């Protein structure tokens, strides 16, 4: 089994109104499902920040396999219990054999994500 890891953290304050109202930025970074989820929250910023950190962590882990994917092709969702998962929105066969686990956390000021990708 080949295992790669990725980690990233981001200051929540960086996801302020200047970005949350920038549709080009949101669409380049987040899927419509992610935007809908985050914008449904009273304070969307920590949710966007956590997802951005997760995508960055995924990108770092994927680089270990010489793979690269745009931010909006990596989707982070939560199940009914709030457990996050990663989905690759691509038909490229290289991604079909990947297993990806993600863990998210945030404090008042920052969000962090750890990702493990294996095949």
């Amino acid at each position, binding site marked *: 089994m080949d295992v790669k890891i990725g980690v990233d953290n981001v200051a929540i304050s960086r996801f302020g109104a200047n970005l949350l109202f*920038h549709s080009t930025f949101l669409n380049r970074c987040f899927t419509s499902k992610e935007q809908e989820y985050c914008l449904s929250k009273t304070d969307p910023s920590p949710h966007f920040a956590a997802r951005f950190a997760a995508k960055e962590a995924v990108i770092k882990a994927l680089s270990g396999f010489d793979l690269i994917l745009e931010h909006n092709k990596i989707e982070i969702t939560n199940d009914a219990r709030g457990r996050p998962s990663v989905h690759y929105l691509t038909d490229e066969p290289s991604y079909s054999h990947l297993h990806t686990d993600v863990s998210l956390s945030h404090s008042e000021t920052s969000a962090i994500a750890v990702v493990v990708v294996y095949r």
Partner: protein
Amino acid sequence: MDQKDIDTIINIFSHIMGIPKNELNDSIAYNSHPAWDSLKHLQLISELETEFDIEFDMDDIIAMENFGLIRELTAKYL
């Protein structure tokens, strides 16, 4: 790409990176300048796309490793 477009790129880059225009040069690079991280990179890309009504290819976004390449690769779309 005319001078007006170049000035627009300079203004956007300076504003997003927080680097004064008179300090900009082509060698300012992603991952070597403290202000230029992945989030700022995507902000920059998004702002250029909005301003010029263009959409960059992924390969070009990755290749934009310094300010000179930002100008050069943006010119391809104008």
